[in-house]
């Protein structure tokens, strides 16, 4: 509960800015966009690091540690949404213009990383469904916190902590919220109008949009991969702890172990993308209609 309160208090200012109008500026349009989105991304990052640090120390049973990374990603995403909202300039004069082009989310997302993040999110969802279904109460009666096994009439036991409902429900809630905020961020950055130079000509700001999209992808990567690595490790060790485990439990545990380097590599890319989302040359510019 304290984590929720802290998170709420820290996210409220960001969301308030997201709903407020754009900041006044006399800078060149694309430079203003770059600076404003970067500032808000870093504000989200700072808030996220604070929230993660506070969250990690909250729950002695490990839920705080589990939720720290997703909460960090959530705050970064909120920062991106706030930044994109600050740079929107609604057309207001009598003479208005728009480029005849089709801007779509796929024009800005980094292709391979977003596929990897989607795969990681799918893997996390499958893993959590399985561990939640297999979870049972621990020795103090806390539901979904251990893995019980039965090796015959007189032998049995349990292993914990296990990523049952005790951990998976709050994790799914935060990750789901993160996905929603990521969708909002992409909607904002694709939908905002092109900026204009002082002469009234439309300017290309695709590099700025790609930076924000890379930050969104990176934040989603952090949001998903850290819990995925943690849940994979605990699940694999839980499966191997059963002395009378079937062969497929052993195989599953090793598959989970073997995938960890891949998730770690994705986490590395995501962390870099959050801290320094550079332009991605492999993406085409929006196709003129």
């Amino acid at each position, binding site marked *: 509960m304290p984590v929720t309160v802290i998170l709420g208090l820290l996210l409220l200012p960001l969301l308030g800015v997201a709903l407020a109008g754009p900041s006044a500026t006399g800078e060149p349009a694309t430079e203003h966009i770059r600076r404003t989105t970067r500032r808000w991304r870093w504000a989200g990052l700072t808030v996220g690091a604070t929230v993660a640090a506070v969250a990690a120390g909250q729950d002695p049973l490990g839920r705080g540690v589990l939720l720290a990374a997703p909460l960090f990603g959530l705050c970064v995403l909120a920062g991106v949404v706030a930044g994109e909202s600050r740079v929107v300039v609604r057309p207001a004069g009598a003479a208005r*213009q728009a480029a005849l082009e089709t*801007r779509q989310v796929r024009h800005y997302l980094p292709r391979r990383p977003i596929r990897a993040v989607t795969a990681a999110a799918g893997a996390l969802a499958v893993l959590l469904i399985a561990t939640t279904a297999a979870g049972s109460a621990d020795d103090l009666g806390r539901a979904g916190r251990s893995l019980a096994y039965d090796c015959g009439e007189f032998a049995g036991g349990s292993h914990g902590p296990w990523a049952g409902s005790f951990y998976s429900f709050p994790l799914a809630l935060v990750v789901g919220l993160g996905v929603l905020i990521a969708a909002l961020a992409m909607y904002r950055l694709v*939908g905002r109008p092109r900026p204009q130079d002082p002469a009234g000509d439309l300017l290309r700001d695709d590099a700025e949009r790609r930076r924000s999209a890379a930050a969104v992808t990176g934040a989603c990567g952090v949001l998903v991969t850290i819990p995925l690595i943690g849940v994979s490790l605990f699940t694999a060790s839980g499966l191997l702890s059963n002395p009378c485990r079937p062969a497929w439990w052993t195989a599953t545990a090793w598959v989970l172990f073997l995938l960890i380097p891949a998730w770690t590599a994705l986490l590395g890319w995501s962390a870099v993308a959050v801290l320094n989302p550079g332009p991605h040359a492999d993406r085409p510019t929006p196709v003129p209609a």
Partner: protein
Amino acid sequence: MSAPTLRVDTQDPTPPYEQLRRQLADLIHTGALQPGDRLPPLRQLAGDLGLAVGTVARTYRELETAGLVRSRRGGGTRVADQAPASSADERRQALDRHAAAYLRQARLLGADQETALDAVRRAWPADE
């Protein structure tokens, strides 16, 4: 920007949907928009121009009625494969509209009739 630009003047007596319809029809008839080219999504174009989505939707509806574009659910609005060619009368009307716009600009610059026509002659390629 290299993409064609759509312009709307909210003080023009012509309704914005009609301004957009004319520009898009001209772009299709002149070949600037090819069969199969996708038009901007309704919400994107409405947001970029600060217009209501319904205004842009009406433009697209009128173009679809004229057989110039086709809309598909989930596939967006695209230029029709066999868009009907503009009639001589429509071409003349379009030319009149552009001439009137040029005339307004020339007057704003203080040019008289001969100066404005001279500018057109200079701009016209010599080999045509």
